[in-house]
């Protein structure tokens, strides 16, 4: 019981700290970095559903992100619909696209699937760049709400508002994944990842479960895309259907620890600041050292700690980060705690 109480208290303190940060940290750039951390953490969690739990690595997740951004924005410009509704509409559209992509691609094993998602991502970006209805390469400006009725448009005067929205969404995303993890869907995902043939012998329709994973993942990505559109106020295929975004999302999840709930949060907390601050420190003169650090870090983590930072955390601090697994009653865990 002490363990339980301790983590509740710690959680409460952590939450209070997080809520108070914008009051203390008031410069826009650090606030921006924090917002990006939350959004990428959430996207990493979404990616994890397919890549970590169900074991299918996707390099095309930007498709869903961009779908959300465009659906939200176009509903605003063409039908004056609030982005709060637009976000969910975007999620539904993205889930539909996920259904198509999954239906076509899930029969492909591992590497083939990864490459197929990459190609789909590239294709979508190319087509979007030519598609006049959605603004083609020029992009779309998100209508600015001069009255900052944030409850309607999710546009805030200062970044602090976005901070809280992003934090709220991250919390919702964590809750969602926690629920998935402890229920049938999560158990089936882990079974599929563990041993697909054995899973089939227990009645699991692998194809269908993977579709569910991808659809939920797509929905979450699209919601983030919708929020992002309100944050940057301008979207175009180059930025929201960007292959580099797909890769960053995958790296956040893998670096943090694919298959664990908190992993992507850790991954984002490390990768995003690294990204943002090194390019500021070393200058955008293209010296490339920030990327070098990035690349080396990924190699090192992959070689020495394939479980990612979450795995490292586990090894150092015990089973605290792992909400996916029952507390082990083995000598191992006892010795660690």
């Amino acid at each position, binding site marked *: 019981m002490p363990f339980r109480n301790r983590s509740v208290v710690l959680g409460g303190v952590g939450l209070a700290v997080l809520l108070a940060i914008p009051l203390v940290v008031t410069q826009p750039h650090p606030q921006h970095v924090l917002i990006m951390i939350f959004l990428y953490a959430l996207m990493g969690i979404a990616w994890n559903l397919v*890549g*970590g739990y169900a074991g299918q*690595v996707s390099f095309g997740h930007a498709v869903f992100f961009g779908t959300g951004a465009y659906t939200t924005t176009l509903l605003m410009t063409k039908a004056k619909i609030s982005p709060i509704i637009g976000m969910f509409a975007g999620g539904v559209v993205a889930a539909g696209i996920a259904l198509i992509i999954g239906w*076509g691609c899930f*029969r*492909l*094993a*591992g*590497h*083939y699937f*990864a*490459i*197929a998602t*990459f*190609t*789909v991502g*590239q*294709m979508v970006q*190319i*087509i979007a*760049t*030519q598609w006049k209805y959605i603004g083609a390469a020029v992009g779309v400006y998100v209508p600015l709400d001069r009255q900052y009725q944030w409850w309607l448009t999710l546009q805030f005067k200062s970044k602090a508002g976005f901070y809280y929205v992003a934090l709220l969404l991250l919390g919702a995303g964590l809750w969602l994944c926690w629920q998935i993890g402890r229920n049938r869907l999560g158990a089936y995902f882990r079974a599929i990842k563990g041993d697909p043939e054995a899973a089939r012998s227990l009645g699991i329709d692998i194809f269908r479960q993977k579709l569910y994973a991808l659809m939920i993942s797509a929905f979450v990505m699209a919601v983030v895309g919708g929020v992002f559109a309100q944050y940057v106020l301008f979207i175009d295929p180059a930025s929201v259907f960007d292959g580099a975004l797909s*890769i960053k999302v*995958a*790296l956040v999840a*893998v*670096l943090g620890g*694919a298959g664990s709930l908190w992993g992507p949060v850790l991954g984002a907390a490390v990768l995003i600041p690294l990204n943002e601050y090194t390019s500021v420190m070393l200058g955008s003169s*293209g*010296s*490339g*050292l*920030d*990327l*070098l650090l*990035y*690349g*080396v*870090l*990924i*190699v*090192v*983590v*992959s*070689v020495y700690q*394939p479980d990612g930072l979450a795995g490292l955390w586990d090894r150092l601090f015990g089973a605290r980060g792992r909400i996916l697994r029952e507390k082990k009653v083995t000598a191992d865990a006892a010795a660690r705690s």
Partner: protein
Amino acid sequence: MTGVVLTQAILSGLLWGAIFALIALGLTMIFGVMDIVNFAHGDFLMVAMYVAYTANAYLRMDPLLAIPLVAGLMYLLGIVVYRYIIKRVLEAPSVAQITVTFGLGIAFRALAHFVFSADYRQVQHPWVEGRVQFAGIVLGAPELVAAVGALLMTALLYWFITKTETGWALQAVAQNKQAAALMGINVDRFFGVAWGLGLGALGVAGALLANFYYIHPDVGAIFGGIAFVTVALGGFGSIQGALVAGLIIGLVESLAGVFISPQLKYAFVFSIYLLVVFIRPKGLMGTT
């Protein structure tokens, strides 16, 4: 007039197809032998191109002359990368294998940025330059040489894999590592050889391309993407598949670019790929 345009497009497509095939060869070989997809493949090509460039800029070597040098250095790089990095993730989950090569690609790209800056570089005064003209068709001479070189190299590799003992050992390892080990084949050594050959082939391709292509740190991205699609189309692990797929992709890219739209040509390449893979998930001639 469209007859000439068509022929031009076809020849140009085949030319590039041969080059794509050579680039894809290394990727498919590494996968065939050890089930690892090298996501840094395009970036290694970039490295090869820079090596050729350096040989030209500082040693005044013509890229064509430098082919053995570049190939040799890339071969060694392959062995080093295998021995010190790839070897350690052989037993790791496949996610780690994917990300490690990714990280390598990013690191090399950043290194190129750092050493050479983002400027577009070009080899100066290559031996082969200019154009070849016949029957109203114009082809770049270096491109033609590159294509011929690529085909020769592909044939050489194919001969090597099928007719030499080392090649047979590689095939044995590719088909069944445990059995190969039981036959006394040092699997670890041949994994290294596979990487060496894979990057060595890139070395040849890089030197051939350096003859006429602009070199910059991100040049690997598009070639890498095409290589993946080529290998997946041809079937992971199949050399003949890589050749056939390379030619197909070269043709599609060229014809789509000329007759439909230059901006959409890659969309066509990708959709052909998706179509084939949808019907035949293992690619045209996939083994695994």
